[in-house]
């Protein structure tokens, strides 16, 4: 439970951070809140030679409206998002989902950029972001580029981010009063989701049903065709490839995906919950 030895780099700006990433290549890992990376390092499942600590770079924590979008700084901590008035008004699913991450300690340290970059399929905020759609803004040695959120996560701990790029911002559409819901299934309040379903405006994303968070495309298509919520939700696990662990085997995960999708869609549609 003691990490291997590493060098700590503390850049003062995004540019310095990118320069450090260029210099150290795949020997380096970015440290933000540390609540995913540090446990892996303590278990020695991750042994980066260089840690680039971006937590002291100013100006990476904000939530603001820009046109039709809400821009969220990559360094915004879950707790800040949870309590943010702009987010609550413009994209209310995000403060709610932020409130469902881990426990208060995790929420006060973890950042939205960190959870997006980590690409754990059992993550709350990425599931909501995938349902929202939007853009991941990244900065590399040759400047900034936008990656559509639907193309960002490639698999378990695998993203479209290049080795020398840093996530600087997440942009999502303003959803205002559109219906939304997040149904997270756990055994304990502070757990990662065994399965979760996020629904916003007819789009549905699932946590922990594949190597990365995924959209329930069969459900979305059925809804677009005018299918009922029950009919559409029954298709939620189509195209997914869930894993098995002590909490759930594959069949049970598929069942949960269908159940949680139905409940999320019912809630988002303003229907009373199936059971009081």
């Amino acid at each position: 439970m003691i990490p291997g030895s590493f060098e700590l780099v503390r850049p003062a700006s995004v540019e310095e951070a990118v320069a450090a990433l260029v210099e150290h290549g795949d020997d380096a890992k970015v440290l933000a809140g540390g609540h995913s990376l540090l446990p892996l390092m303590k278990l020695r499942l991750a042994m980066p030679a260089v840690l680039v600590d971006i937590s002291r770079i100013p100006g990476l924590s904000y939530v603001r409206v820009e046109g039709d979008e809400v821009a969220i700084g990559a360094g915004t901590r879950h707790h800040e998002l949870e309590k943010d008035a702009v987010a609550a008004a413009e994209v209310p699913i995000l403060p709610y989902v932020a409130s469902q991450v881990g426990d208060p300690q995790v929420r006060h340290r973890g950042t939205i950029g960190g959870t997006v970059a980590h690409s754990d399929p059992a993550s709350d905020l990425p599931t909501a972001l995938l349902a929202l759609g939007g853009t991941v803004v990244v900065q590399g040695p040759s400047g900034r580029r936008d990656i559509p959120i639907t193309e960002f996560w490639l698999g378990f701990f695998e993203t479209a981010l290049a080795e020398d790029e840093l996530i600087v911002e997440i942009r999502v559409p303003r959803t205002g009063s559109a219906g939304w819901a997040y149904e997270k299934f756990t055994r304990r309040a502070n757990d990662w989701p065994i399965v979760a379903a996020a629904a916003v405006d007819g789009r549905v994303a699932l946590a922990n049903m594949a190597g990365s968070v995924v959209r329930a495309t069969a459900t979305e298509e059925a809804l677009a065709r005018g299918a009922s919520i029950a009919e559409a939700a029954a298709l939620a696990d189509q195209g997914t490839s869930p894993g098995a662990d002590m909490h759930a085997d594959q069949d049970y995960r598929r069942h949960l995906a269908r159940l949680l999708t139905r409940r999320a869609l019912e809630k988002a549609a303003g229907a009373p919950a199936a059971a009081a």
Partner: protein
Amino acid sequence: MSILGTRVVRTEDPLFLTRGATYTDDLADDRLVGALHATFVRSTVAHGRLLSVDASAALEAPGVVAVVTAEDVADLVPIPPPFPFVNRAMTRPWLASDRVRFVGDPIAVVLTEERYQGEDAAEMVAVDVDPLPAVVGTAAAASDEVLLFPEAGTNVMASFGQPAPADFFDGCEVVVTQPMVNQRVAPVPLESRAAAAAWGEDGRVTVWCTNQGAQQARGQFGDWLKMDPDLIHLITPDVGGGFGAKIGADPEYALIAWLARHVGRPVRWAENRSENLIGMLHGRAQDQVVTIGGRRDGTIEAYSLVVDQDCGSYPRIGTVLPTLTMLMASGVYGFPRVHAQARALATTTTSIGAYRGAGRPEATSALERAVDLFAAEIGMDPAEVRRKNLLPAFSEPHTTPMGATYDNGDYTTALDRALDAAGYAELRAEQARRRERGDARQLGIGMSVYVEITGADNGAGTGEAASLEVHPDGTATVLTGTSPHGQGHATAWAMIASDQLGIPVERITVVHGDTDRVPQGGGTMGSRSLQQGGAAVHQAAGELVELARQRAAEKLEVDPEDLVVDLGLAGLAVRGTPGTGVTFAELAGDEQLLVQTHFTAAAPTFPFGAHVVVVEVDVESGKAEVARLIAVDDAGTILNPLLAEGQRHGGYAQGVAQALLEEVLYDEDGNPTTSTLADYPFISATELPSFELVEMATPTPMNALGAKGIGEAGTIGATPAVQNAVIDAVAHLGVRHIDMPTTPMRVFRAVQQAQGGN
């Protein structure tokens, strides 16, 4: 008014809550200056032949002073089984030499100048193991196809009892049998294991280690290291939880002392959390088969419990747990025929020890599930079946068919109080409405009635020592052989002394856990402390008053019979002459005022109670949540309700945790899959309701305080009540049994299967 029975706030808490306690790993003792840090190299293979251990690379690593392997400890005699009834060939090497028997089996120790260097160097110790098939689960163990100790010729560590006679259930109208699992759980104290040792020039060793009884640990050190116990000064610093897993010493602790002599420098060790989850004793781990028979009118005539106890790799307290389970097999009931039988089996897993209740929760869970199964089979309300079969209230000792002699009990009143507090009839009505409507969230109502045995000393000697001294400045010191690790003895023992002496609680210091100051003691385990250690303090206070009376009589030139304790004075006054007297402090100024005593209870005590639990089960997902937990826990006279309630709350939490969440798991190769707290589902407050406590107090005649034990009742009562509630929530769908932990997937599958699905 007596201070006893009042909610005195814990005097130890200001320190714990502000500056923090001093746990073993926090020690900054002069004797530990320059201590080396020990890091264990542990087997990553469950079972195999140890071919070689190559430490040459590790020895070159920064900060490494020594790497110790089996060859170096060859002068130490392997640790024999802790009980005479265990197969004598099942000894434990100090460090694995020719075979490894569980993931976590110590193979080598790396000693480094700094702690962090140890984990780096330990990775460089090359261990070559030729794997053998793992033995996971009692069925694999009992088959004896693969032996952990070939020289023993079997995996059976010990056997208890005989099979039931063939005609045992003859004449019963209904017989129900059910295999069930009382799963392996991890104790997870917040403070994991730690030890430190330093040798003096006088040939004595000072050892600090986190445990539940310094004197017992010292005895084990002496036995294992072949040392005169007088040469061992064992100190138990503040302890952050034990739950039974810190009873006595672990071999690692004694090895730390040996290593300190071996290298000629102090050595300290603190395990990390993953090491704790594989290295510290686990608890429970019984596979049970219950059979219960009786008449359709609800009368139960015969009950049989057969236990296979998974003991893990090396015999520890786990080997004796089934005897406690057997002793308490018939619990609160007056069944005419009771049978119990058990085997203790070796598997290639972490050893099993005591865990909050230690054998008794396993008995109660089996029994209370069996009664529910019987009730379901005959279609009778489970409360009614219980009432029909409970032993009638008794105030004279009652001996059960299993040979336990209960001091007193009134189980029907306990059940009725719990059901009344719960509003049982209305709960059943609400359940019926939800079933009628086919709600997704169904209500489950579970109950348990229990009796347990406490203060039954287990090899630690019987009774408890106490000494009490009043000092000339008016303060007092209590020395006790009990060993608090969260219970609040500093407050409780001070209350007992204060009650008889009039010295305020805050002026009384309680000393424990130092074998030089308190050479005798039984420690804290088995819910023994108040009824033995507290009773010893009570006896000491009485003896001190008598000693003071003789001295005061001489000093005041009065008849001792004319002197009475004046609590306001904190001394003795002449009867009928207020203001004339002498304080204990003044007497102590004349001559040391000290008594040393030993209290031995005539017999164990048998606390009892009843729990009612309400759960809501989402039948679409299978997830159960505890909505209410109503508990009657009769532990005799309560010394301090605040402390007693704390014990009850903690026990309920661990009971709910076992019923709903926790299980230590191994894969088929014997690899632990729950060795971090991300995987091992430790319960938190968010999974628990506010508990509803119902009072009942039937004093025991076994000690002057009237106290029975309260430390373990919570787990004993709550665990089966929660499990029964979860099953009750889906009983109308045809489900009769679900093993613990009642995970969402298990509940969902049970419903599917009952409904004829896949």
